[in-house]
């Protein structure tokens, strides 16, 4: 049996006595009385001692009770106030009538007949009146007085600690009491003194204090995971400015200038203007009449002023298209994960800024089947069980496709968009080969992964949530299935 140091001390103190008060034991052990009782309970749990708990009740008169003890209960005072009978009307005028009349009837001291109150003659002193004079435990009448609020009850608890036969035997046999050591000192370690020490044992069932590590935000981890997948698939990372000209954000992507997405309600415009790059004339011609391709263009007019307005990038395609303009020779495999901006009011699933992932492949001979292949590979690496494809529509791709991934709890979930850049997009930039492109909202995946229903939590962090979200989720182990 592994007794703690304190239990041993208590056992040995009790040994010669058999039983004792905690105060006496506390003195012997030089600990507070509560500590002695606590150790005794531990010994009791091991069957070595019995802790006897005695409760003595004390009664004290309340102010009201003290008053009645001196002058008699209201009903007694009232009874002595009239002869054999009295009209009810008259009696009720007495200040004690309110309590007194009811009690007198209840105790059978009076009857009320035809408006007259008559004494019954059965009005000897009751148990309650006796208890009122001497309120000690066990007296009849105490309960009534407690109910009437004339007495207050207090409990006095006392303990008596006694050894069981097992305890007596163990004490007689004796236990070794050695000082326990909490923290090992440097001296004890290097001198070998530790060999003589008794190290204090800790209870592993008691949870430790909670501490929190420094950590990368769970959303940033997810972004990092996607970066790693795309880097492993041989993609070059793109980084670029938040501010873009409408030219690169819209016109270079063949978004007509009167497209609803370009309106002020949907896009954050800025007061700044930027010079158009030399390629703008080819882009303009493409909008107006299809340039030198088989396209008809959008017709209408095209304004240089509209194209030079600055916007907060509405999609990361504004970065990929510039990357292509700067790198027109194949092959190009590039990606970016960037924050993009939409003029939307905030609610649980809509934010004015969020991360978008975008990947492009430009090479001789790449085609629609390859696009589907890249999508399938990426989503499979992201841990989705199934990927399927539906026709989609995006203004700057043709053909366009909407990938869906299978999520066991939800079924098929739409997961971004993809397509091959239209020739109207690639031709003005001098790109001679097809460009496969896909994009997706990163927060969509974050919601699925982290079980979120409110996107705002990602950006307006509740520190507690970041502290409590594990750094590693099982499906995140690289190379795992």
């Amino acid at each position, binding site marked *: 049996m592994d007794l703690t140091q304190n239990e041993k001390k208590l056992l040995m103190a009790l040994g010669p006595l058999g039983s004792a008060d905690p105060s006496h034991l506390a003195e012997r052990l030089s600990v507070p009385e509560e500590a002695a009782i606590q150790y005794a309970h531990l010994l009791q749990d091991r069957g070595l001692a019995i802790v006897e708990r005695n409760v003595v009740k004390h009664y004290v008169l309340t102010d009201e009770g003290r008053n009645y003890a001196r002058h008699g209960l209201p009903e007694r005072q009232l009874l002595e106030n009239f002869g054999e009978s009295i009209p009810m009307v008259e009696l009720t005028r007495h200040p004690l009538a309110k309590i007194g009349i009811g009690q007198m009837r209840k105790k059978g001291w009076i009857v009320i007949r035809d408006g007259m109150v008559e004494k019954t003659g059965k009005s000897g002193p009751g148990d309650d009146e006796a208890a009122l004079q001497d309120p000690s435990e066990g007296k009849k009448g105490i309960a009534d007085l407690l109910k009437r609020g004339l007495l207050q009850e207090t409990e006095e608890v006392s303990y008596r600690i006694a050894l069981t036969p097992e305890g007596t035997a163990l004490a007689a046999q004796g236990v070794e009491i050695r000082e326990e050591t909490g923290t090992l000192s440097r001296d004890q370690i290097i001198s070998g003194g530790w060999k003589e020490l008794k190290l204090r044992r800790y209870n592993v069932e008691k949870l430790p204090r909670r501490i929190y590590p420094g950590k990368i935000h769970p959303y*940033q981890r997810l972004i990092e995971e996607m970066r790693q997948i795309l880097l492993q698939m041989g993609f070059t990372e793109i980084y670029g400015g938040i501010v873009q000209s409408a030219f690169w954000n819209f016109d270079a992507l063949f978004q007509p200038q009167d497209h609803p997405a370009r309106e002020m309600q949907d896009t954050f415009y800025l007061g700044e203007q930027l010079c158009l790059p030399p390629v703008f004339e080819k882009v303009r011609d493409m909008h107006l009449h299809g340039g030198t391709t088989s396209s008809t263009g959008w017709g209408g007019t095209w304004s240089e002023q509209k194209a030079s307005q600055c916007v907060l990038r509405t999609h990361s395609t504004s970065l990929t298209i510039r990357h292509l303009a700067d790198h027109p020779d194949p092959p190009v495999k590039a990606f970016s994960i960037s924050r993009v901006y939409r003029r939307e009011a905030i609610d649980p699933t809509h934010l004015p800024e969020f991360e978008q992932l975008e990947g492009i492949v430009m090479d001789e001979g790449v085609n629609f089947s390859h696009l589907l292949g890249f999508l399938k590979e990426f989503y499979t690496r992201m841990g989705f069980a199934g990927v399927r494809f539906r026709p989609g529509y995006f203004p700057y791709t043709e053909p366009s496709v909407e990938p869906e991934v299978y999520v066991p709890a939800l079924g098929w979930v739409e997961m971004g968009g993809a397509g091959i850049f239209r020739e109207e997009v690639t031709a003005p930039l001098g790109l001679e080969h097809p460009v496969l492109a896909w994009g997706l909202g990163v927060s969509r995946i974050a919601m699925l992964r982290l079980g979120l229903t409110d996107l705002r939590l990602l950006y307006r962090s*509740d520190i507690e949530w970041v502290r409590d979200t594990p750094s590693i989720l099982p499906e995140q182990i690289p190379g795992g299935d």
Partner: protein
Amino acid sequence: MAIITLPYRYLERLTGIDRELIISRLPMLGSDIERIEEDHVDVEFFPNRPDLFSVEGVARALRGFLGKETGLPEYRVNPSGIKFTVDPQLAAIRPFLGSAVIRGVSFDEEAILSVMGLQEALHWAVGRGRSKVAIGIHDLDTVTPPFHYNASERTRKFVPLDYDEELTMEEVLEQHPKGRMYSHIVNNFPRFPLIVDDLGRVLSFPPIINGELTRVTTETRNILLDTTGTDERAVRTAVTIICTAMAESGATIESVEIEGVRWPDLSPSVRYVRTDECNRLLGTGLSPGEMAALLQKMRYGAAPAKEGMVRVEVPCYRSDIMHDWDLFEDVAIAYGYEQFAAGISPTFAIGKPHPVNSIGSLVRQVITGFGFIEVIPFTLSNGEVMFTRMQRPVPDDVLMILHPITEDHTLLRTDLLPLLLEICQLNRHRELPQRIFCVGDVVRGVETSQKAAWMSIHPAADFTEAYAHADAICRELALPFTVRESEDPSFIDGRRGDILVNGKPAGVFGEIHPAVLNAFELEHSVAAMELDLRALPGYPGSPGTP
């Protein structure tokens, strides 16, 4: 988005195909099913396919896609003998007019709702909220041809739809619900567009409202269509889509002569496309015959032509066909997206991270090593948080949003530290100490760059903690730095330092000023630091320039 209601009974009657098959195949034609109800299904079609914004249009496409009736749908147009004049003064206001007569319609309430639904969807997708195109539908038998499209005095009176008294056109813009909604389109013009019959009675005040006179009811048998706008191609698209949808429902179409030109023209346009180009784009191995058959399923007229070409007749309502690749996408849809072998291209390239993001990752690693938790605040912020509470002056080159949605988001952040303090404010009731950090973009002028910042809040946070961490972090980042006393008003005088790299300021650290703590409702002292990552060795030139 255009959500079209498709009643099963009508759709089944038009297609001869049962609803289960239709619902299961619709997504593969290019649509999102929004709701499946007892008697109808609501479907969202893409904005490039306004020809699918009616039950009749969807039925036409489904008959082809599901093999019931393939190839080009042909529409006859007989002359009606009705003429329309156009006032030359409209050239600067709303120059283009399209029209047609539609005879033998049989409207019930549902059919009227369906036509109005198509009209509204076209106003949205093709008409850009009626500014580019507006459509009017009139009971032809209430008016007397020829008709006149005029630029009218703004004080001309007529009874607008849903009213029983005359209003001037100006009053219509001020009082009628539609007038208030669309007045911005015409209000700046000295005269207003107006369509009248030969007796001078008003059919319509485009693009605002029709007259009550020509209201379409269940009794209406013959329709006059007017379509006005600022873009001729868009006007033509709207006219052909409405006419062909009505023809699909059993009506006959007759032409109207507008200034000598016959409207509508419902004949197809012709394109020659290359089979090998299509196969190259899609990764397929189709023969010209196979390709033509697939195009016929999508309701094109298509036949193999010489030298691997396919001759394609594009129906007049397919306004989205701008380029050969648009046809190739339809080949892919007819082929079935689920039939494609998804294989990765052999394109060889070596993955390469961007140095800005590599630096960001390293900085995150270093700062988490000191026990800080990362947060990712918005980049949109406001002057109150960014400058006022920080006791800092507003820099000249802060980037303001022109039309913010809320007072919270009026500018792009120039610093990260204010946002960390704001996040701590939100987390006041959480356990201390709180040690948080952020690495991310900031914007000055039009230029984006990256900063890193951390802060630590607890009763014993002080300058010593700030300096020790700043020093350690800079050493870990291999920054060749020196420190001098700072004058940053966000920090306590005598408890603040500037970090200099090559003699230039690159960061600041210290103990946050109690007035700043008060402004963020924080009750304990804060040690903090912010660092411009452009000072780091290896940070590239100017990757964030637009």
